[in-house]
């Protein structure tokens, strides 16, 4: 039966070629959209590893170039913040605090294995402010900083890349060539997740190291319910400490949703456009199928007269369309398979495979729907009437 269908379509491949190209292009578009969707959804499902509720980010600019003055000012701010009941914990960080638009990265090496990683410098209170869960080891303390090694905490992703299956905690490693002279780093703890760019971020390499003297961004965990009133009070009182300072506070929740929107909005626009495109194609296919089946009335009449049941006719035409789709899909899959094979965009192969699977299913469903109505029309034809027309 299936062989028979393939034979029919292959014989008329020329007249079906337009349909096949259409399926081919639709598949490619669906494949792209599905892969993108799968990729983002997969990332969305992994835990964030940090809590943004009731977290503020303060951007402080002391407007001074002297590092000693800066350190004094920072100490002043810390002392002042400890007085507020609203502020539960806080930590200075480098400019690339979670959900800001800054990035900072560096490369690291262990036993000739190299890895590039985001680097953020933080204070010991950082995990408390961000409600992070340390899965192995512990966070660095003030006492660690004085030691021979720079104490660092890394994400599981980075641990896997540098140390593979070995236990990460306790390992000593260095930077890439760039920092040959500086102190070596020692892993004191590991966190499983740290999604600091958006909810749709892939798990990535991050290394936390002790804060530097020029860090002037700050994350603050505040008591639930603290709003603009408390914020205004704190900013006013802090700014009073130094007249040249500029202080801005942002809610991390808002920052996160901004970053999420940057990912979501383009995907949504793409989805809408592709949805319309596919709908357009579906309508076209429906019309063309309707017309082709109409033209084959006599053939249907003969088939019916020779004993084909209604169901057989219905399935025959749906099958034929499915076979046309299969030809288009084979061509499309040939191109789609190149993505995981050539590792384009550096995304896991499973994402592409899943995308392909979804796109194939989508195309068959689409074709099935488009073919169903015309095929049913064909199946209810009375052989006597049709053959009489002839």
């Amino acid at each position, binding site marked *: 039966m299936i062989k028979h269908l393939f034979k029919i379509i292959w014989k008329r491949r020329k007249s079906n070629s337009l349909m096949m190209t259409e399926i081919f292009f639709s598949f490619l578009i669906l494949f792209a959209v599905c892969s993108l969707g799968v990729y983002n959804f997969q990332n969305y499902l992994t835990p964030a590893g940090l809590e943004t509720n009731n977290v503020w980010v303060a951007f402080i600019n002391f407007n001074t170039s002297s590092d000693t003055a800066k350190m004094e000012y920072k100490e002043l701010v810390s002392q002042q913040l400890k007085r507020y009941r609203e502020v539960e914990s806080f930590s200075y960080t480098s400019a690339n605090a979670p959900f800001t638009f800054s990035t900072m990265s560096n490369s690291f090496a262990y036993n000739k294995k190299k890895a590039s990683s985001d680097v953020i410098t933080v204070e010991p209170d950082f995990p408390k402010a961000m409600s992070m869960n340390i899965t192995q080891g512990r966070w660095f303390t003030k006492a660690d900083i004085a030691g021979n090694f720079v104490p660092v905490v890394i994400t599981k992703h980075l641990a896997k890349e540098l140390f593979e299956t070995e236990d990460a905690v306790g390992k000593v490693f260095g930077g890439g060539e760039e920092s040959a002279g500086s102190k070596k780093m020692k892993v004191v703890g590991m966190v499983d997740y740290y999604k600091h760019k958006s909810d749709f971020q892939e798990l990535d390499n991050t290394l936390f190291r002790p804060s530097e003297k020029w860090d002037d961004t700050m994350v603050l965990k505040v008591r639930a319910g603290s*709003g603009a009133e408390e914020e205004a009070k704190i900013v006013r009182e802090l700014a009073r400490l130094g007249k040249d300072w500029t202080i801005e506070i942002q809610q991390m929740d808002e920052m996160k949703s901004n970053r999420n929107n940057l990912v979501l909005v383009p995907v949504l626009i793409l989805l809408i456009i592709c949805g319309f495109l596919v709908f357009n194609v579906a309508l076209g296919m429906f019309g063309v199928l309707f017309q082709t089946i109409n033209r084959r009335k006599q053939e249907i009449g003969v088939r019916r007269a020779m004993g084909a049941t209604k169901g057989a006719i219905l399935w025959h035409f749906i099958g034929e369309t499915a076979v046309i789709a299969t030809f288009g899909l084979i061509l499309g899959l040939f191109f789609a398979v190149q993505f995981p094979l050539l590792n384009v965009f550096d995304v896991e192969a499973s994402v592409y495979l899943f995308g392909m699977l979804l796109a194939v299913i989508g195309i068959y469903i689409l074709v099935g729907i488009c073919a169903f109505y015309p095929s049913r029309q064909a199946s209810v034809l009375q052989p006597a009437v049709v053959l009489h027309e002839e």
Partner: protein
Amino acid sequence: MLFNYLKITLAVLKRRKFFTFISLFGISFTLTILVVVTAFFDHLVSAGYPEVNRDNSLYVWNIKEKDTKNEGSSSGPVSFSFINTYIRTLKTPAKVAAVSMFNSINIYLNNHKIKVMYRYTDANFWEVTSFEFLEGKSYTAQNIANNDYVVVINDNVRDQYVGKGQPAVGKMLEVDNVKYRIIGVVKGCPVTRLHTSSDLYFPYNTSKADLKKTALRGDYIALILPNNPNDKLKLQEEFKAVASKIKPTKTGDKWFNPDKLYVFADTYFVSFTRELKGSGDGDGSAFIISILLGVVLLFMSLPAINLVNVNMSRIMERASEIGVRKAFGASSKTLVMQFVIENIILTLIGGVIALILSSLVIFYINQSNLIAYIDLSFNWKVFSVAILVSLLFGLLSGVYPAWRMSKLQVVDALKY
């Protein structure tokens, strides 16, 4: 005769409602998306309020220093002193304005906060741009010389801070513990005018940052408007000569000691393509344009194939009609003519629907507050090109099969 064709066409279109709907939907929907997308693109790159002189202006925005030995590079906006030393001294007559990158800050007012963007500018900024002042005026070189703490705000801030429609000039605005006197209120502009949009504009001398620093990199953008629009190329050449003599910063750092420096006076569009895809002296615009064209072509291919497909089956379906008409003596020419007119009419109807649809979408986007102050406009150029392209496809796909069929023997055509 033409009227006859028209009547036939409408009758045919009405008879096969479903096919008509498919064709119309395909044409109008594709055109709509194309027009809306290009309206966005146009909005991003072409001149618009308040940068009406954008096409004549040059932008010095980014300076890039490269260490060719260690393959490191670092880049960012230029400093205020860079603009004074290297750009204001250019010989070609032009107005040079300095404007800082935007920053945001919160204004606290009776227990709620207004998040605002602010920039520092010089007095020339108000001459290079064409802001519409709803009230008051801009600050001048005199204000800056007097070290006046004044500010120009936009209508959005006025509505929130002072009250809707109330006079704001003369009132004080407190930002970061410093009081500024409101000197003017401008009509706001969308954030997509990346170098000019802001909520507050301060004179550069009120900035807390030290402007005397002579570093090359800083926080400013230079907008250059030649007095004579034809001087643009001359200015670019002159600046290139000046830039080639600037020495890279001596960092003293072993790992990053730049030995090459890139800074250009670019047109608006090129200043972005250079940032995205430029390398060395190349500006990357060719690459970006070909990518954009590629995306549009890919997007258009599907509706085009669909149109061809639907048209083919429409004609095939009418084989017997062609046969009958031929049998009654119609010439190939008359038959083809009819299909040409049919296709033109179909495309035009689709075009009209697209026109209405895209105007509605653009109107909606402009009205809704998705992006404040956005002012998309209908792009007639793209619309007419798109109509021409769909006509071409319509004719190719509808008329060619019809012509072939009209060449058929009557007996064969009738047999279809």
